[in-house]
């Protein structure tokens, strides 16, 4: 029993250990890496990605997958920007209503995504992939390919105003992380994600409305994508069709690196935090130590494989597909 426990403990903390080793490694290579300024930089790049990754974490815990985040993020960003500008263009006016509106839009897109998946009985991989096209397409339709600038100083304060050297967006991200943690551990919906991921047919036989849990899961993920969209807009001050680009692979990679299993039932939002930080520390560290740009993708790939090998418990399943 003793050895089993240590193994479990090791598996549980392995992602964090990997993160710490990475930080120490980059700090040893380049002392400037280990500075508050640089950590703030990592925080800024991590915040939007963390929100998107948390959204998809819930889906992956259910044993499904969501590839629609790029479309959803773009739609939310663009709708937010239009509404914000139309209603006054500054948070000091009624334009603040654009913030909850964006979350609502995220929820609606997520709901639609879940409905297509559950009601048309299309596997989530295909349904969400196609919905991602629709989302990106819809954002393109709204903008006609233009960029929308959001230049309100109050809103940009997400990036420019700093408390204790970290911009507000980092605190916003932490707040939503705590909300996600709360949902995961203290609400029926959050626990039901684990039930569905652990054994969908069994959960159904126990009287759980699995389809409802799935649809709500995708809706919830949509809300978090919307938060990610707001932070992404806050970070660069621009909303466009491409706002959502690159979120898909990065977020799913982060979730897996953090130790949440793609087959469902294992993991959680703290794992995702660690996973997002691992990916962003690698990205930032490669720049800081001056690795040439063209090798960075390859090094990231190799390090991600190493991180997954080291940090996730893959012994519990026989087959990895």
């Amino acid at each position, binding site marked *: 029993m003793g050895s089993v426990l240590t193994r479990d403990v090791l598996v549980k903390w392995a992602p964090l250990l990997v993160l710490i080793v990475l930080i120490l490694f980059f700090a040893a290579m380049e002392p400037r890496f280990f500075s508050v300024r640089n950590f703030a930089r990592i925080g800024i790049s991590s915040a939007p990605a963390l929100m998107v990754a948390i959204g998809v974490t819930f889906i992956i815990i259910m044993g499904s997958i969501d590839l629609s985040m790029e*479309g959803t993020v773009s739609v939310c960003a663009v709708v937010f920007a239009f509404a914000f500008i139309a209603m006054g263009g500054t948070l000091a006016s009624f334009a603040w209503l654009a913030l909850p509106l964006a979350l609502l839009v995220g929820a609606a897109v997520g709901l639609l995504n879940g409905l297509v998946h559950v009601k*048309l*009985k299309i*596997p989530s991989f295909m349904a969400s992939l196609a919905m991602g096209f*629709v989302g990106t397409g819809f954002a*393109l*339709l709204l903008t006609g390919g233009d960029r929308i600038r959001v230049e309100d100083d109050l809103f940009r304060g997400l990036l420019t105003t700093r408390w204790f050297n970290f911009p507000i967006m980092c605190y916003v991200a932490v707040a939503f992380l705590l909300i996600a943690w709360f949902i995961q551990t203290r609400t029926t919906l959050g626990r039901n994600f684990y039930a569905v991921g652990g054994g969908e047919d069994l959960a159904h036989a126990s009287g759980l409305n699995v389809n409802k849990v799935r649809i709500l899961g995708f809706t919830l993920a949509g809300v978090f994508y919307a938060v990610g969209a707001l932070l992404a807009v806050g970070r660069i001050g621009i909303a466009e069709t491409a706002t959502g680009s690159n979120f898909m*692979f990065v977020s799913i990679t982060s979730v897996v690196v953090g130790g949440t299993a793609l087959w469902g039932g294992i993991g959680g939002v703290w794992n995702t935090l660690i996973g997002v930080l691992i990916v962003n520390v690698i990205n930032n560290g490669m720049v800081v130590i001056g690795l040439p740009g063209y090798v960075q993708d390859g090094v990231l790939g190799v390090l991600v*494989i190493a991180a997954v090998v080291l940090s996730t418990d893959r012994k519990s399943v026989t087959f*990895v597909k």
Partner: protein
Amino acid sequence: MSFERIKPHLPWITLLALVAIVGIADANFLRPANLIAMAADIVPLFIMALGMTFAIYIGGIDLSAQSVANMTTVVATVTLPLFGVGAALVCILSGFVLGAVSGYVTTKLLVPSFISTLAIGGVAFSAAQYLSGQRALFMDAELRDATFGWMTGSSFGIPHEIFIGAFLVLVTWFLQTRTTFGRALKAVGAGEPAAVAAGLDVAKIKIMAFAVSGLLAAVAGLLFSVKLSGGSPTLANGFLLPAIVAVLVGGTPLTGGVGGVINTLIGTLIVAVIRSSMLYFEVDATKQQMVFGLVLIAAIALTIDRTKLRIVK
């Protein structure tokens, strides 16, 4: 009962229906010359999708296909002056090796293929950037025509790409249905534990499946490079998701063991028809992607055989 019988045939029925709809809207679409041009145009995507079929057939996925194709365009352009026709061999070999590495990481290091192929894709992208010096390269026109001109010519009014595509379908179809490798792939996709208990070397088979996927991605890249007479690390961008879509729409679900290369042929053609139909229905450029997504959902909803999926995840 009768609907049960129709189900396996839904992909090509969907294809015919789509062709008929576009044809009724604009008879020009049905002109042989137009159909042939459309088919020739889709061949590189099709070859990539063929490779992807092998990865999906065993229940995995290959997200490195696009990067491998990108890298191959660079490799082809760089090695053409050095090796001539041998450049093709270098390309194919490099694709094969990268695919095998993905397979190794997936089966031996137990990293899900979603992550492992993505990561190996990153490696391929870096290699492409390094080899190209991060700029677009161009082939010497004369040298290209002399070595690979046969790839892009046409005979009897039919572009050679179509022959290449047809040849590869035949080869992969033979591989899938007539060889021990194909049979083993099916067993691994449909029931991996039983394949292990039958004494098959499952790890080797899976590695080979990813290697074939990489090889065909490289062939797609080579063809692309010859067509566009050059190479760059981003030349084949935008191909990955359509290739996956082509496989899925054709009726090879992500659960493995079902479908195959013929399904992918149909799936690719469905994607091609949907895309070119935008022109005939005069869909505004900004609307095209959204319409594509919507039609795609409809097509997938129609074509997938849900009886083969135990649980819809």
